């Protein structure tokens, strides 16, 4: 008798458990006390270092929110998933985050293609997604929807800021060398848009395949064209290798090398020689803390949690993206999608790098862009860039909402 009774209880528990599993909405309702932010980022793969820093920074936003008492006692939680830098993988992880784990919001990604896949999934399920990677497309129709937010910069904004600075300072004869995929094309379009107004002369527009390991065959030709500026539009390892080889060929003696984005992590990986003197843009550099108080507070918090290291550019976007969502929830007094969207639209904030605003029409973060120049080796291994110019947040530097297809 005793044993059969036990078995019955177990069976009942099992049934209850399985019915819970079958109905994610119930799980969601029962665990409604925590605010869950799904965070798919490419922990494995070539951008693993940047992704891990995105997580470290996002955790700071969560910790700060919880230490301040949360939302009337409701604590926040970060659900980190590996999207493996693959759109399909990212979509699957996002579906799981929303339907199985009951995530209230999604934030993350580190690639133009991946963020569009995540956005698509979140859009279909009516869940707010705050993207922290570069893209013009995500803020424009048809990809954009009411639930789409974009804390990351856009290639148009980045290339515009760097182009305005470089073309006025270093000359008008320009050669482009771009990685042959969406990132390269969008960035070069941004440079050309601002360059046309400034009267630049494009001597050549060369393309190389993504993941190239040798650029030597392109360099003699570039050298013979004698450009004032070489705009190197590639990312990650491509950028490190092309800069190193351009330096070896002595290109820097005659030509200023400019990149739309200079990554803190890439500079650390490639060493100072390859990057020395190269000018580029960034969404964040820790060195702005001397003039921006919020940057100082954010860096200090990060240093304390990470053995004195400093946050990277893409990492810091993880902080801003998660913090914006939590700020929206706080202002909306809950996680209701429509209310949070209303709270975020037009929101003015200064989280970590000066004044920003979420443009109401397309949910794009209007934000400062920093122009930086890579330094020679110094005493402090973290001190790798000089901030040589700052473009304050200005919606005129973005693609207009009308051009993006918004009414």
């Amino acid at each position, binding site marked *: 008798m005793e044993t059969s009774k036990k078995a019955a209880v177990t069976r009942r528990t099992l049934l209850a458990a399985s019915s819970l599993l079958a109905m994610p909405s119930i799980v969601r309702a029962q665990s409604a006390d925590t605010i869950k932010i799904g965070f798919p980022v490419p922990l494995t793969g070539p951008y693993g270092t940047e992704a891990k820093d995105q997580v470290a920074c996002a955790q700071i936003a969560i910790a700060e929110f919880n230490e301040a008492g949360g939302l009337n006692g409701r604590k926040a939680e970060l659900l980190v998933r590996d999207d493996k830098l693959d759109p399909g993988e990212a979509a699957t992880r996002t579906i799981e985050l929303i339907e199985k784990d009951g995530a209230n919001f999604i934030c993350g990604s580190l690639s133009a293609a991946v963020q569009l896949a995540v956005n698509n999934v979140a859009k279909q399920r009516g869940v707010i997604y705050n993207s922290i990677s570069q893209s013009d497309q995500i803020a424009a129709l048809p990809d954009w929807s009411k639930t789409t937010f974009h804390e990351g910069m856009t290639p148009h904004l980045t290339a515009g800021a760097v182009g305005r600075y470089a073309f006025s300072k270093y000359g008008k004869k320009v050669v482009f060398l771009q990685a042959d995929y969406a990132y390269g094309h969008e960035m070069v379009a941004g440079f050309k848009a601002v360059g046309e107004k400034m009267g630049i002369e494009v001597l050549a527009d060369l393309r190389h395949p993504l993941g190239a390991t040798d650029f030597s*065959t392109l360099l003699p030709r570039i050298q013979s064209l004698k450009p004032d500026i070489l705009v190197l539009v590639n990312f990650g390892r491509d950028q490190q290798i092309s800069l190193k080889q351009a330096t070896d060929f002595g290109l820097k003696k005659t030509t200023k090398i400019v990149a739309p984005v200079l990554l803190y992590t890439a500079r650390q990986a490639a060493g100072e020689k390859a990057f020395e003197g190269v000018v580029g843009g960034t969404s964040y550099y820790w060195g702005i803390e001397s003039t921006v108080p919020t940057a100082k507070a954010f860096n200090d918090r990060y240093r304390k949690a990470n053995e004195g290291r400093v946050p990277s550019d893409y990492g810091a976007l993880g902080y801003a993206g998660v913090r914006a969502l939590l700020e929206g929830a706080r202002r909306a007094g809950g996680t209701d999608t429509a209310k949070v969207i209303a709270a975020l639209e037009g929101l003015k904030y200064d989280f970590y790098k000066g004044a920003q605003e979420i443009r109401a029409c397309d949910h794009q973060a209007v934000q400062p862009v920093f122009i930086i120049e890579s330094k020679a080796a110094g005493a402090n291994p973290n001190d790798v860039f000089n901030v040589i110019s700052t473009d304050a947040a200005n919606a005129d530097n973005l693609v207009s909402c009308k051009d993006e297809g918004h009414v």
Partner: protein
Amino acid sequence: MDGITPDLLALQLFTGLALGAIYVLLALGMSLLFGMLTVVNFAHGAFYMLGAYAGILLLGFGVNFWFCLLFAPLLIGGIGMLSERFLIRHLYGRGIDYPLLLTFGLSYIMVETVRIFFGTQGLPFDTPDALQGASDIMIGYFPTYRLFVIGVAILVIAALWLFLERTPYGLIIRAGARDPQIVRILGIDVARVWLVVFGIGTGLAALAGLLAAPLQGASPEMGASILAESFVVTVVGGMGSLVGAVVAGLLVGVVVAMTSLFAPEMAQVAIFALMAIVLLIRPQGFFGRAGLMS
């Protein structure tokens, strides 16, 4: 296309030869392993990558670059010999795909191991001080280090040729490749010969990787793309032919360089187009023996 001067063409040709030098070193090792052991070594790219990281490790211990050029290939060649002794040896005579699959798996293990110990981001590798900057080569300035790579490749080719053609040990290796049974009957330990050959092949890959590190830095994935390219070189030159590896390596380098000059986006495709054309006209490659794969 305007602005193409004879000097630029000559410089571009030279750039191609320098690029080809790395291909030659990789393809030599690969061809050696195939010609002597009929092992298609899919881990060749991983050994190349290990060479670069062995260099970083040794530099970290204060060994200077010149000694690294000696010790890194010895170290990685040693790892190559260990994997031959304990893994690949058991698959001889079982058909070409067995060692192929084994080395394929081995390459994954090596790449992951490096990721665990050295990180996924890749590491910088500075050009040695003595070889920095560019040198005047009459037609223009060319990076000194790339000239050095060409020099090392020539030395290695000469040394390998002398070793195989002019020493008693080379004679045994060549005999062992042609008829292992007779060599064994003559009282020679063929297993040891193969062990040494595998060590030389992987050591050459490591040397190529170490030489490439100052050009592009070191990263766990650096062997993946160059593996495909050096396979093309090996196939074009003729599987198992060392002369073929040298000629095809330089040719592929020059083809990439020349395509880059006129149509940069076609450069990568050009390598494979070259392979397709060669395979159509001469399936065994320039210097390959027909029927070796069957």
